[in-house]
Every structure is written in C-alpha cells, then in structure tokens.
C-alpha cells in the first residue's frame, strides 16, 4: 500500500502560536505609540521646568477635579473590558454586556473631554495662546484620537460578536489597544493636569 506523505512540513495552526499575529502586531504598534507619548511628556516636562511661571498667569487653570472623575470612568471601562475577557470562552451574553459597558464608559470619557475643550477654548486657552495651551491640546488631543480609534475597534469587535464570529485574536488586539489608551491616561493626567 502506498503511503502519502506531505511534501512540505505541516504548518502549525494559528491557535498553536504563543501570541496571535493580530495581537503581536498591536503590541508592536502600542510600543511605538508609547514612545510617541513619552516624547511628548518629556518635551512638556522640560517646557514646564524651563518656564519662569507655571501655569502661565493669564491662562485658565485646567479642571483637575472634574477630569479625575473622567479618569475614573476610563479606568472602569478598562475593568469592564477585563470582565468581558473573563467570560469570553463560556458566556457570550455576559461578554457582550461588559463590552457594551466598556464602550459606553469610553464614549463618556471622549464626550467629557470634548465638553472640557469647548469650555477651555471659551475661557481663552487655545492652541496658540501659550505653551500650556499648545502642549495641552497636542497631548490630550492625540490621546483623544487614540481613544476614538480604539472605540471604533471595540465597536467592530462588538459587531462581530453580535454576528457570532468574533475571533479571540481580534478581540485580543482590540483589548491591547484599549488597555493602552486606559493605561497611558493616568500618566498624562498626572503630568499635564496636576
């Protein structure tokens, strides 16, 4: 009897990889984005230390207390996403619930930031009014942009979950992105607002 043997080595299935490709790609992206934020925070730290008076006397103060509440909302959304991951393999309904909660808290964070910006612009803090304004809108704006894109990725994952074909790799990549948005914010809050 003739035995058929594979000509090429059998490729490992995707599930046998230590880290799925999508998650690894997102991790590499997050590493590069971390360096972007590190550069911005470093530049802000030097500008702040070099200024004779900080914050500039003719500029409005940043609303640290109100933003603390917003920070709590963002941290809670990270916790909700973690809870969604915990039930990913055994309870799709619970996963959907926590994923929705995470997205709602994230949307609250972005909306609150928008309201805060409108108020600050009305008080005279603009991109060109001072170094504080320039750095504030640049750093917080780039974080906000990341938050919006990450919310889009979470929404895409939610849609696929709703249709019943959300892969663990895609969910993992969305998680990594959102955790990055959540984890970098306390550092920005500490350096920019306090």
């Amino acid at each position, binding site marked *: 009897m003739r*035995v058929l*043997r*594979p000509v090429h*080595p*059998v490729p*490992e*299935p995707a599930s*046998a990889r*230590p*880290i799925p490709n999508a998650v*690894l790609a997102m*991790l*590499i992206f997050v*590493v590069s984005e*971390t*360096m972007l934020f*590190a*550069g911005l925070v*470093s530049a802000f*730290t*030097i500008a*702040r*230390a*070099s200024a004779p008076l900080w914050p500039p006397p003719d500029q409005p103060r940043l609303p640290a207390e109100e933003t603390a509440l917003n920070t709590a909302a963002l941290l809670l959304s990270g916790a909700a996403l973690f809870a969604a991951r915990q039930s990913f393999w055994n309870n799709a309904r619970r996963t959907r619930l926590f994923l929705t909660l995470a997205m709602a808290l994230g949307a609250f964070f972005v909306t609150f930031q928008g309201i805060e910006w409108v108020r600050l612009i009305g008080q005279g803090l603009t991109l060109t009014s001072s170094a504080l304004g320039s750095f504030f809108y640049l750093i917080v704006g780039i974080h906000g942009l990341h938050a919006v894109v990450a919310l889009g990725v979470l929404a895409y994952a939610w849609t696929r979950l709703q249709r019943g074909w959300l892969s663990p790799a895609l969910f993992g990549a969305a998680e990594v992105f959102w955790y990055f948005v959540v984890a970098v914010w306390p550092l920005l809050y500490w350096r920019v607002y306090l």
Partner: protein
Amino acid sequence: MRQKLRRWGAILFGFALFQAPRLVLACSVCTAGRDEESQDAFLATTVFMSVLPLILVGALGWAVVRRTQHRGSTQPRSARALARSLEASP
C-alpha cells in the same frame, strides 16, 4: 603642494575642533538648562527616554518567551509533534 594642503587641512581641522564647544551653545535647548529645576528635568527625561524602549522591547520579548514556554509545558503534543509522529508512522 600636496604637503601644503595637508598642513592647512590639519590646521583647519584643529581650529574646527577648538570651535566645536561654541557651536554646541548655538543649540536653543542646551541654553535652556540654566537653573537647577530645568537641569533636573533634562536629566529625568533623558533617563526616561533612554530606559523606556529597553523596558518595552524587553517586556515584549519576555512575554513571547513566557507564553511559548507555558504552551510547551501544557501542550506536549502540539500540532507539529503530531505531524512528526504521523510522518514517522508507516
């Protein structure tokens, strides 16, 4: 003629070296660190920016190695091992 050129080249090079520290002062950032607070900020951010990429890349590599080892200990008969055993069987 060639020797003359070399001599003048050496003199110009020495002069440029002598002038180099003054050129550094032309950097607007270098003149900013005059007081102690801004010098501390420069030092802290330099250390931060130098160490952070090493930590990030190290953590990524460590996570991949750890996951690989964990997978190896929990799944001794991986797909590749199964394929090898199938190939070996008549």
